[in-house]
């Protein structure tokens, strides 16, 4: 009964989404206020019914209703309650339902926080979001119904993939989707601007906080995914350049370019067409990312052959959204005049340079991700593009990006002076170069990439400090600085922290695979690891061999780690659960390989020393907080009139 109620709620949500899409768009075109006013209630109703459907599915998971196919395939009676709840979005169907729910949430948020927007703008934005909802709801209902029954009901479920049974995975998908779907708001604002022809500083000011918040969520989602991979995959890596990761990274790069381009459009009225294009690209890549990961096309392009309806729908939808928006863009964008001239050396030009570099990086990732799929789909053989390609391309491209990141916020709008910039930045430049050269000397071995990484981290840190110092010298007090400024500085500082972390861990981590008997020990990075054997351990839905490893330094035992080798009851799937001692400056990571001689308790053991790895997550978190801080700036909350940019040009971007 409950699953049918959920199915029914989805159908109602689809009808409401159709209403929300069609009537307000017509109304906005004809200037009919009655039709336009349908947008808000329809959007909110759609959200309520999506929430009801989601609740029904979650309920089916919680009560172990194995007559629902989705539950039977992705859950298990012994699965702990929290994972039964998260299994709701663990499958293809469930995750698309989550997508719809989050889109409903964003739409409702726009409908509530848009009181000061013109009616036709609201109608168009909500209408476009309604169209996206229609696409996703129709896809769910026609090809991927999460409420399909299984007759006769299964006796028990097939369990959730053990790798996903981790609390990083509980919050990773919702955060990631908050980011993906958040770009739908930026997309809808862009389409609305193209439709209405109104693309001014006020438009940029409306869409900017939404975009920044979406970007912050996406940052958080990606960081959580990376953190999960580090802890759960048992290989100690934090980024693999895997297509599933690239799928979320591409919209992030586009989004990063977009928030910087929006800054110029808001403050200076320039880059209008470019900003709109980036908004279209960011959301298109979000859609692409969702489908790449969720359609099964990555594990095999032939997954579509087994379910042609899904593949055809996805391709059709992508073509419609991306193609349609680009056609609209090509038609309307040339009519948009960009204001605000600027010279080749100005904050605008530097931001433009940064945008170009980011897009080049995006192109490189896109090529490496899609090319193997294309070749496979064309039947031209199988190839893979691994981390060596991405590292070889991405790291050098980050050099100009990070350099510009330091200069941009200190340059004047419109026209900056090169001698002036040089005199302000000469010390920062010298100290950064010195740090890059000297710091690796104190560490274990001189690595060229470490020179680059340290210099860049120090460069960003110093330019952020200069930014504060100059503001204070000009009479501002810390309390009078805007949240925009704090947010930008914090996010940039987060980047410096992250770059420092990446530099250390990528260049100075050490690992060792060893064969260990009880009492054997091995040395790594000054620590001594002693293997104390394994004991049987019973988990809620698995049994495990739990190892004991003493970690000591200078003869004193510091930590006792317990890596596990688990076998899950339902699937019989083995899994390595690493044990990690987390600290500010270094992680110690121990994982059990395989038992080499079970009677004698001999195991292959993998030990890692990961210096500074936590700086990555800390840096990402600073970027997230910076994003939220910037989006909560006072000027977004006061009503803005559609006028030209004011004299606030000296304020932070």
């Amino acid at each position, binding site marked *: 009964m409950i699953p049918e109620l959920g199915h029914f709620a989805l159908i109602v949500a689809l009808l409401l989404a159709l209403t929300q899409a069609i009537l307000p768009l017509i109304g906005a075109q004809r200037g009919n206020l009655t039709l336009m006013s349908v947008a808000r209630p329809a959007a909110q109703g759609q959200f309520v019914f999506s929430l009801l459907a989601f609740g029904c599915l979650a309920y089916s998971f919680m009560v172990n209703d194995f007559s629902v196919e989705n539950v039977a395939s992705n859950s298990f009676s012994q699965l702990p309650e929290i994972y039964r709840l998260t299994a709701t979005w663990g499958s293809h169907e469930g995750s698309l339902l989550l997508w719809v729910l989050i889109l409903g949430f964003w739409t409702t948020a726009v409908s509530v926080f848009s009181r000061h927007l013109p009616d036709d703008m609201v109608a168009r934005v909500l209408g476009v979001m309604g169209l996206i909802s229609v696409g996703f709801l129709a896809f769910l209902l026609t090809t991927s119904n999460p409420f399909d029954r299984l007759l006769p009901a299964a006796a028990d479920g097939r369990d959730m*993939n053990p*790798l996903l049974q981790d609390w990083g995975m509980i919050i990773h998908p919702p955060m990631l989707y908050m980011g993906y779907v958040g770009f739908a708001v930026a997309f809808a604002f862009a389409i609305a601007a193209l439709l209405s022809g109104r693309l001014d500083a006020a438009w940029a000011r409306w869409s900017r906080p939404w975009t920044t918040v979406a970007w912050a969520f996406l940052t958080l989602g990606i960081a959580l995914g990376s953190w999960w991979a580090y802890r759960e*995959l*048992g*290989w100690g890596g934090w980024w693999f350049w895997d297509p599933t990761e690239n799928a979320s990274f591409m919209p992030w790069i586009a989004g990063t370019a977009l928030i910087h381009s929006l800054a110029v459009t808001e403050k200076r009225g320039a880059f209008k067409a470019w900003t709109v294009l980036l908004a279209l690209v960011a959301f298109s890549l979000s859609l692409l990312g969702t489908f790449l990961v969720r359609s099964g096309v990555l*594990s*095999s392009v*032939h997954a579509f052959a087994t379910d042609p309806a899904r593949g055809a729908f996805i391709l059709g939808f992508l073509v419609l959204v991306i193609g349609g928006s680009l056609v609209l863009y090509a038609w309307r964008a040339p009519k948009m005049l960009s204001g605000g*001239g600027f*010279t*080749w050396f100005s904050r605008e*030009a530097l931001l*433009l*340079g940064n945008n*170009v*570099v980011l897009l*080049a990086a995006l*192109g*490189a990732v896109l*090529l*490496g991700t899609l*090319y193997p799929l294309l070749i*496979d789909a064309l039947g031209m*053989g*199988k*190839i*893979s*593009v*691994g981390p*060596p*390609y991405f590292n*070889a*391309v991405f790291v*050098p*491209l980050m050099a100009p990006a990070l350099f510009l990141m330091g200069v941009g916020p200190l340059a004047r709008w419109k026209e900056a002076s090169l001698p002036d910039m040089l005199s302000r930045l000469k010390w920062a430049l010298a100290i950064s170069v010195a740090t890059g050269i000297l710091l690796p000397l104190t560490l274990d071995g001189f690595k060229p990439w470490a020179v680059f990484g340290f210099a860049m981290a120090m460069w960003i840190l110093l330019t952020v400090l200069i930014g504060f110092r100059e503001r204070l010298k000009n009479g501002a007090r810390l309390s009078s600085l805007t949240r925009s400024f704090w947010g930008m500085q914090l996010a940039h500082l987060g980047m410096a922290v992250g770059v420092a972390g990446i530099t250390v861990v990528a260049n100075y981590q050490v690992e060792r*695979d*060893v*064969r260990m008997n009880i009492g054997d020990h091995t040395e790594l990075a000054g620590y001594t690891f002693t293997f104390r054997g394994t004991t049987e351990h019973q988990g809620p839905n698995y049994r495990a061999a739990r190892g004991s490893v003493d970690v000591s330094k200078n003869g004193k035992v510091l930590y006792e780690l317990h890596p596990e080798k688990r076998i899950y009851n339902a*699937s*019989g*799937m*083995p*899994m*390595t659960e690493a044990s990690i001692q987390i600290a500010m400056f270094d992680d110690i990571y121990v*994982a059990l*390989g*395989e038992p*080499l001689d079970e009677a004698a308790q*001999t195991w*292959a053991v*993998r030990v890692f020393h990961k210096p500074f790895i936590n700086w990555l997550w800390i840096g990402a978190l600073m970027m997230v907080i910076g994003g939220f801080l910037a989006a909560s700036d006072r000027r977004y909350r006061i009503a803005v009139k559609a006028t030209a940019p004011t004299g606030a040009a000296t304020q932070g971007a």
Partner: protein
Amino acid sequence: MKSRHKKLLVILLGLTGLGIAAALILNAFQSNLVFFYSPTEVAAGKAPSDRAFRIGGLVEEGSVKRDPDGLTVRFVVTDTSKSMPVVYKGILPDLFKEGKGVVAEGKIGADGLFNSTQVLAKHDENYMPPEAAQALEQAAKAQQTLVQ
């Protein structure tokens, strides 16, 4: 310079930069592509001898052997028609098992062994690495045509 000329200059500089970036990207791409070959293709001499490639199929039953150091593993990858001996030093992924699908990346050594630097993990018990599945499929097709 007039502002128009400056603008032109900036655009030209930008395009040059993009051109260099594109050249670097394509060059890196070209040299880092890893091709996949099935054991049958390797046996037919189609695989390169100087660069790394991937091989996939099933881990032959009873073929997994360990050297006394406990970390060097030898096994045979087969597509049921031809097979390829592989040697790998390190910890194998959780789902590595005799009779199951596997993909290994590496080079053919002078001894004719496939020196693997990486044995790929599958994320799911039921899921066969696509390359391995394709190798088996091709071998099966080839055998069918032989029978006919």
